[in-house]
């Protein structure tokens, strides 16, 4: 990735606290279009909060979050919805609608946000489910799926609108190494096929090293490092070196 590429995301001097707990303090970084950035850090250092700030589920106390040219933290209503259509979000728990089948989970955004016909929606849903290997399970309820299948279904729902930016919260949590690796493969495929900008929060160093172009390390509410793997493996901070799996 080069700095000459257009910027997809700018996180500019963002601070966020909940009550007296400061979760993020003057955090700044930017993500280029088509780049994959992995957010690493110990538990409770504000990684998931960063993702929620990126998609406007939370608003910063100070600073701004730019998606393209738009400050998402200042948008509301239809403007916010319009910007969110460019983005997909895979939740840590997948957050599938438990009263709907897989097919209905994926069809909801297509029905609401596009003018596709019923058969076009069916086709798009089937294609998205086939990409994650769940086409045969389209009539199943989320409760009937394993953890890995739920994650893949969540990923299919996040991708069904073909977003420019994909935000992924802990894709490998609760999964075995092989299943986690399958999720990483899907992310790599997405990156290669559609040049989607991806921001991933993860504790899985192995997966992060496979998927990430650059790595942001958060510690004690601050961004302590943001660079490529090679640079961070020899970083002066032991915490950074440990988190990226270096010496």
């Amino acid at each position: 990735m080069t700095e000459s590429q257009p910027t997809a995301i700018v996180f500019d001097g963002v601070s966020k606290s909940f009550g007296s707990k400061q979760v993020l303090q003057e955090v700044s970084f930017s993500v280029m279009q088509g780049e994959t950035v992995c957010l690493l850090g110990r538990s409770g250092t504000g990684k998931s909060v960063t993702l929620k700030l990126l998609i406007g589920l939370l608003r910063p106390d100070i600073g701004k979050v730019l998606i393209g040219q738009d400050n998402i933290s200042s948008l509301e209503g239809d403007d916010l919805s319009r910007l969110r259509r460019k983005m997909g979000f895979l939740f840590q728990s997948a957050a599938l609608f438990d009263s709907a089948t897989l097919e209905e989970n994926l069809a909801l955004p297509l029905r609401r946000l596009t003018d596709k016909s019923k058969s076009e929606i069916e086709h798009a849903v089937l294609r998205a489910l086939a990409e994650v290997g769940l086409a045969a399970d389209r009539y199943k309820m989320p409760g009937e799926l394993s953890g890995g299948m739920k994650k893949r279904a969540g990923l299919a729902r996040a991708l069904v609108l073909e977003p420019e930016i994909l935000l992924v919260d802990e894709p490998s949590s609760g999964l075995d190494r092989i299943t986690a690796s399958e999720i990483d493969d899907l992310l790599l495929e997405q990156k290669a096929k559609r040049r989607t900008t991806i921001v991933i929060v993860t504790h899985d160093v192995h997966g992060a090293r496979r998927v990430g172009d650059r790595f942001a390390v958060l510690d004690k509410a601050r961004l302590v490092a943001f660079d490529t793997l090679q640079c961070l493996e020899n970083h002066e901070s032991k915490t950074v070196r440990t988190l990226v799996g270096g010496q």
Partner: protein
Amino acid sequence: MICTIADGGRLKTFLEFIGVIASFAARVITSAWRSPYEFEQTWMQVGEIGARSLPLVAASGLALGVVMTLHTHSTLVTFGAAAMIPKVQSLSFFIEIGPLVAALLVAGRVGAGIGAVLANLRASEQIDAIEVLSVDSFKFLVVPRVVACVLVLPLLTTFMDLTALLGGFLAEHALSHLSAQLFIERAFNGFAWSNFVPPTLKTTVFGFLIGTVSCYYGYTTDEGAEGVGRAATNSVVLSSLLVIVADVVLVKIIFLFFPGSAL
């Protein structure tokens, strides 16, 4: 919140709470008139809230009708007013018992259900998932539930009134072999539309209160799994309380506009 009100009597906290609920209710009303309209979701909720409450309302109406006749029969016979039993039955149910009991039953069954379901959706990040899919979660989840409560309660109330009359007739028939035709004639002799329409329509207000309060507790909870139980309990307690308070106010208003409806 309720504990705070009861224990501390902190006026400021109480007024703040009233303000928050009122602004939530105002958001429901303004959102309900704005497109896109959630007809499919509303229809689903009408089925969920209405059809599934029907057996409870029917059984309660039937039982209350029987009990009411058993209580009044001997007394009215003593005073030679046995012929009044059907009319006492119809007036008391259509004017007050039907609307209030139906509302309290719905507050118990549906209020707890709505509070728990929405709180669970919040705890499992499903509401956030709806938001990130660019769907207005408030319009998608809250408005259809409140609208369904408003639409369904008058129907459930009418159903309760009728099943109570049926229960009353069965009991009276068992005690005095009164025919169905005579029971109906006596029940509706001198019965005015103002005895039925205003009391039944007041349940739309009860429906709005039950729906709004239950959705408020469910939608705004941020306490994870523990909040699910609390949302369900608070929904039932506050919506039942508000139904009773609103009933007092609405009865007074009905008397004002329909003086003939007073017993």
